[in-house]
């Protein structure tokens, strides 16, 4: 048998599985979004883009979209900056580097369910960690409702997520810094670049491709992340921490508005692909060069 025929036969089951569970399912979801399916009984009579038009008048949809944007504007850069800072701290041949790295990265290896549970305890207004600690060190005036205060709940979410993801960004940037040839660093040192200015002028500009990769991965997470917010705040108080994935879940599975939930999912999909496709295209072109 020709090798290429074998190749296709071997790949066929996977292509069918992924084709069904990813591509056909996405198509199916679009069909649902164009139907009038409400309630537990499936219905596929097509009514067109009516559900998408409804979105425009749905205040929870706009709150969710705003919060996703807030995650992109605050969570993504703060994780990148904190990770970069930690990477630079660790890059200068410190003792016990492995221990620090292991500690910083641990939250990222764990489930969002665990991290959300731990932070629910941190933020608990009555007996939780932050308020009690603030009181004990004489900063009682900083006590807060944290995730129960709708005006700051979203920022509490962002803080905890930054805590979880900075270890990951640190890891990527540290590898990036380490891959810069020693000779270049030494040449810059001879030229008088020193300490943090060495990083600012010589090293950080060379991290462009890792920053881009991390940027895309974090942005995609900022859009599709569900577990953490669902468990920490459930979208509350009120709708203050709703994001699109949560809104999709609530409309679909709590309220059985299947067509409407599918429409939200499709919008989410389009936004994510607007980020991912150009990135995949660019990185495949770079590999060819």
């Amino acid at each position, binding site marked *: 048998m020709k*090798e290429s025929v074998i*190749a*296709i036969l*071997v790949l066929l*089951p*996977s*292509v069918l*599985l*992924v084709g*069904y*569970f*990813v591509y056909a*399912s*996405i198509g*199916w979801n679009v069909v649902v979004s164009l139907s009038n399916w409400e309630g537990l009984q499936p219905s596929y009579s097509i009514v067109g883009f009516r559900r998408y038009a409804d979105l425009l008048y749905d205040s929870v949809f706009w709150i969710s979209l705003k919060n996703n944007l807030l995650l992109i504007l605050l969570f993504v850069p703060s994780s990148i900056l904190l990770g970069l800072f930690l990477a630079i701290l*660790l*890059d*200068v*041949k*410190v003792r016990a580097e492995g221990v620090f790295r*292991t500690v910083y990265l641990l*939250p990222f*290896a*764990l*489930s*969002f*369910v*665990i991290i*959300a*549970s*731990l*932070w629910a*305890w*941190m933020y*608990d207004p009555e*007996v939780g960690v932050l308020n*009690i*600690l603030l009181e004990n060190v004489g900063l009682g005036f900083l006590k807060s409702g944290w995730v129960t205060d709708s005006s700051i709940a979203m920022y509490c979410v962002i803080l905890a997520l930054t*805590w979880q993801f900075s270890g*990951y960004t640190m*890891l*990527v940037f540290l590898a990036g810094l380490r891959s810069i040839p020693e000779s270049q*660093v030494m040449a810059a040192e001879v030229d008088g670049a020193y*300490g943090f200015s060495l990083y600012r002028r010589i090293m950080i500009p060379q991290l462009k491709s890792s920053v881009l990769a991390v940027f895309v991965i974090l942005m*995609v*997470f900022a859009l*599709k992340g569900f*577990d953490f917010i*669902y468990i920490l705040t459930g979208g509350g108080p009120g709708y203050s921490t709703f994001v699109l994935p949560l809104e*999709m*879940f609530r409309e679909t599975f709590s309220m059985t508005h*299947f067509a409407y*939930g*599918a429409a939200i*999912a*499709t919008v989410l*999909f389009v936004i994510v692909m607007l980020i*991912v496709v150009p990135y*995949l295209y660019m990185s*495949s072109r770079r590999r060819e060069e």
Partner: protein
Amino acid sequence: MKFPRPRRILLYILLILFAFAFVLPFWTGFTTSLKTKRDVIYTTPVEPPPSLTLEPWIEAFNIMEKPLFNSLIFTSLATIFSCIIGSINGYVLSKIRFKGSDLVFLFFSIGIFIPYQTVLIPLVLTMSRLGLYNTIEGLILAHTAYGIPICTLLFRNSYKEIPDSLIMAAKTDGAGTWAIYRRILLPLSSAPFVVAGVFQFTSIWNDFLFGLVLARGSEALPASVALANLKGTTTAFWNVQMAGALWYALPVIIVYLILGKYLIKAYMAGAVKG
């Protein structure tokens, strides 16, 4: 690069302060899990328990025992299946030249990034039609199918490092496609199997969304959903919740401490959970 001495001290102070910030939630979760309800209320969250109790750990285990067992089963099996499939796909996509090979790879790659919300409704419908809703088998199928893209990527990247000359030499000796895989690639595959295996194990174990929609309140309930349910109740106080969280975290912490460097390899290759 070297920093002068006074600055190096500042450096270590910063590193240690950050380490405290990263450890604090775990530490307070741990101490709280060993306290009685009374002590949780009347002691500071960071101090060790005045009177040690294992009661919260026992209570949490009684609630989480079956879900932890469920998670162990479907996580292990889906990890094994997706790694085997990924290995074979990776071989074909890296070592056999055929038309459309790049296209197939792109076809898989997109699957890594899709937001699962987009496939949630069809997934639930599919599983109910197959009679796999609320079953361990359903979770195995879902996690295997959605694990194929990332496993394929990890194995393909790893196999690309194996020189083609090895393959050519085997071919001139008359080895067929399967023999090359079994006799050349597979013996060199322990590293990628550990990398992909550790990544799949931790991310399937950590999954919440699929468990939530495919196994609500039933025989197949995963530990993640059981823990979330624990948090939702008013009866489970903080000490029990923290003990539950730590029970659920334990397997991943062990894997992380022993095989962390392989997990890091997967992260570096772009494998990130959603």
